[in-house]
Structure formats: structure tokens, C-alpha cells
């Protein structure tokens, strides 16, 4: 037990590495702030392509895309993008590689979420908007999408929390997000306390969101 406390709750180590981890936390936050909107917007576009059934080909291409990337582990995807694309003549820095891998992966999940949301908006809404002379783009933008977002707000938040958690895999390409910072610190102090401290930071960051989400979901269930 003594060992365990020394190993995981070593206050002295906490103090030593705190500023370092704070940097990592900051990286996690801005990384999330980049990848979440990108994933959400591409997901929305895919979902629109899926639900506004203009072309069966487009529909099936999107389904194949979405299912493939839902099946593909993001960690493996990141490694392939980072180390593989240069062979195709596309060379990416860490951040771009992470953003692209996350974008490919997240878009598929967000697409499924938005699809459910769009399907929940009655056909009459589009018709009503079109009948007042709004073109399709404007009708989607001002009438259909706001309602779709509302329909699935809890899922959107839930998925975004998942994305924040997923940023930990950026540590394999040594992007210095929170977990990476903790692991680096661990290798300096030869003590796993930094990882524990990182866990506490993740909790501090995400627990309020999870709680809020729980509330929203509960309300929807009623």
C-alpha cells in the first residue's frame, strides 16, 4: 500500500510535474477544439448526403465510408496516415496527421449521429421552407439542421467527449497532449504518479460534461 501511494499519489511528484502536465492539458484542449468542429462539420455534410437521397451512388459511397471508418481503429489509422502517406508524396506534420486521422474517423461517427437527427425532422419542414421560396441550401441551414442538432444534442455532446478522450492516441506520434506529457514526465521521475495526475485532470475536464450529458439524456428519456 505504501508503495502504491508512493507510486500513484506522490504529492511531491505531483508538484514537480504539474506545470508540465498543464501544458499537456492545454494541448489536449486546443487539439480537441480543432478536431471536434472538423469532425462534426464533415459528419454533418456526410449525413446530409445520406439523407437527401439525390443519388443512390452517393448514398452507398457514404455508407461504405462511414462503416469502414467506424470499423477501423483510430490508433491504427493515425499510424498509417503519419507514416504511410509520405510514400504517396503527401508529407504531414504531426498536427496535420492527427487532424486528418481524427477527421476521417470522427466524421463517420458524427455522420451517424447527424443522420439520426436529420431523419427525425419531418419531411413537412423541408416542404414548408421550400414553399416560402427558400432554396434547398437555405432551407437546410435555417430550418432543418437547427432542428436536427436539437434532436441529437446529447449524442453530439457524448460523441465530442469521446473525441476528447481519443486525443490520447495522439501520444503515439508524440504530439505532446496530456497523456503524452504524463508519460514523458513518468520516464523522467521513474514514477507513475504523473499518469495518475493526468487522470485527475481528465476527470476535472470531462466529468462536468459527462454530468451535464447525463442530465440531458435523462430529460430526453422522459
Amino acid at each position: 500500500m505504501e508503495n502504491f501511494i508512493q507510486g500513484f499519489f506522490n504529492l511531491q511528484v505531483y508538484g514537480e510535474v504539474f506545470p508540465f502536465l498543464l501544458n499537456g492539458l492545454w494541448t489536449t484542449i486546443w487539439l480537441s477544439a480543432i478536431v471536434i468542429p472538423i469532425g462534426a462539420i464533415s459528419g454533418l455534410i456526410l449525413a446530409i448526403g445520406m439523407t437527401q437521397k439525390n443519388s443512390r451512388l452517393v448514398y452507398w459511397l457514404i455508407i461504405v465510408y462511414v462503416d469502414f471508418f467506424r470499423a477501423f481503429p483510430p490508433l491504427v489509422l493515425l499510424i498509417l496516415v503519419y507514416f504511410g502517406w509520405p510514400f504517396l508524396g503527401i508529407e504531414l506534420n504531426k498536427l496535420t496527421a492527427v487532424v486528418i486521422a481524427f477527421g476521417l474517423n470522427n466524421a463517420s461517427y458524427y455522420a451517424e449521429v447527424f443522420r439520426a437527427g436529420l431523419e427525425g425532422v419531418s419531411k413537412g419542414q423541408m416542404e414548408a421552407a421550400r414553399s416560402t421560396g427558400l432554396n434547398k441550401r437555405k432551407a437546410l441551414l435555417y430550418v432543418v439542421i437547427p432542428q436536427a442538432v436539437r434532436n441529437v444534442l446529447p449524442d453530439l455532446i457524448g460523441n465530442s467527449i469521446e473525441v476528447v478522450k481519443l486525443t490520447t492516441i495522439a501520444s503515439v506520434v508524440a504530439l505532446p497532449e496530456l497523456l503524452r506529457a504524463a508519460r514523458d514526465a513518468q520516464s523522467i521521475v521513474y514514477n507513475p504518479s504523473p499518469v495518475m495526475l493526468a487522470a485527475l485532470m481528465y476527470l476535472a475536464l470531462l466529468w462536468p460534461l459527462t454530468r451535464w450529458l447525463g442530465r440531458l439524456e435523462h430529460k430526453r428519456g422522459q
Partner: protein
Amino acid sequence: MDAATGFLFTFFNIDVARQYADVIGKGTLITLSAGLAVIVTGIVLGTLLAIVRSLGCRPLSLLIVAFADIMRSLPPLVLLIILYFGLSEVGVPLSAFAVTWISLSLVLAAYAEESVWAGITSLPKGQMEAARSTGMKWWQTMRWVILPQGIRRAIPPLTNRVISITKNTALGSVVSLNEILNNAQGASSYSGNPTPLMMAAFAYVAIFLPLVIFSRWLERRWIQN
């Protein structure tokens, strides 16, 4: 070497592929069994927790909520690392497989608990009353009337989670679990060629694409009913 042959030589190198096929194969078995174990344990445990929560005992419910919140807020990789090194520091050195299995099961259980619980609470109160009024005991009602409906309602929101959590078996590579990715990374740095990573990619798709397609089917079937 022009770009195309370079690409093939690098990513689809037959010699390398042949050499490491069995390592990747073994990893695939581990990933498969870890994935299955996680799905089964996570869903069963989550359902049990939801049942305990519906007993309505406040301290127990609070514990369960706290558990679910923490598991849903922590990145699984962090949980994995802490359990792997932490458990053995307190004298329970479980194998990498066991730790991967347990930590992902806990995460899935947290989500399953929330979904099943939501499924249960969304049922009209009359279901419980009607069953009790025929003389069924609380747990009989739970078993035969409430749970079958609650779980049914929990399935659509849960499918996406099951997939993404199961894919996280790849994180086991960090704690020395010899699953696909770990073996592939080892092989690719050992051979100095990323072909094993490509093989891993194929193996993952072969394992998880059926799961994704199955979940789509399940969702559609459930919605129709």
C-alpha cells in the same frame, strides 16, 4: 524505384508479409478473444449495475452513478495504464490480457448501465405494477417483464459504443498485450518495413466491419419492431 513500386515494396511487401503472417494471425486471435470478452462482460456487468440501481437504494445508486461517470470521463488508455501498473503495485499483478479485458469491460459496463437504466426508467410504471399484481416477485418482474423491454430500448444507443470500445483493444498494445497492433508494430520496426501494419489494418477491418454491419442490421430491426 518509382513511386508506385516504392509504395508496393513498402506497404505490400510479400516477403515481409509471409514472414510475419503467423505473428499477425496470433495477434488477431488475441484481439478477437479480448473483444468478445469485453462485449460479453461489459454488457452483463452494465445490466447488473442497472438492476442494482433500480433497487432504489440511494447509497448504492450514488456509487453506481459515480462509477459510471468516472469510467465515462477517463480516456480508456489512461485507465488501462493505471490499472496495469497500479494493480500490481497493490499485489494483484493481472496479465496484460486480463487488464485490457477488465478496463475496457468497466468502460463498456458504464455505458451499458446508463443505457439500460435509461431503458428501464423510460418504461411506464404500470408494467411493474401489472406484473406485481399477478403475484410475481420483484426480481421475477425484473427478469421477465422489465429487463427484456429495457434492454431492447438500450440497444440502439449502445451499438456505436460497443464498436468503439471494442476497437480499443488496440490500446492493449501499450501494456504489452500481444494483440494485432502490438505484434504488427513490433514486426514492422523489426523488419524495418510497414507491411505488417497494413496487414494489421486488414485484420482489424476483417474483425470489426462485420460488427459494424451487424449493428446496423440490429438497429434497423429494432427500430422496425
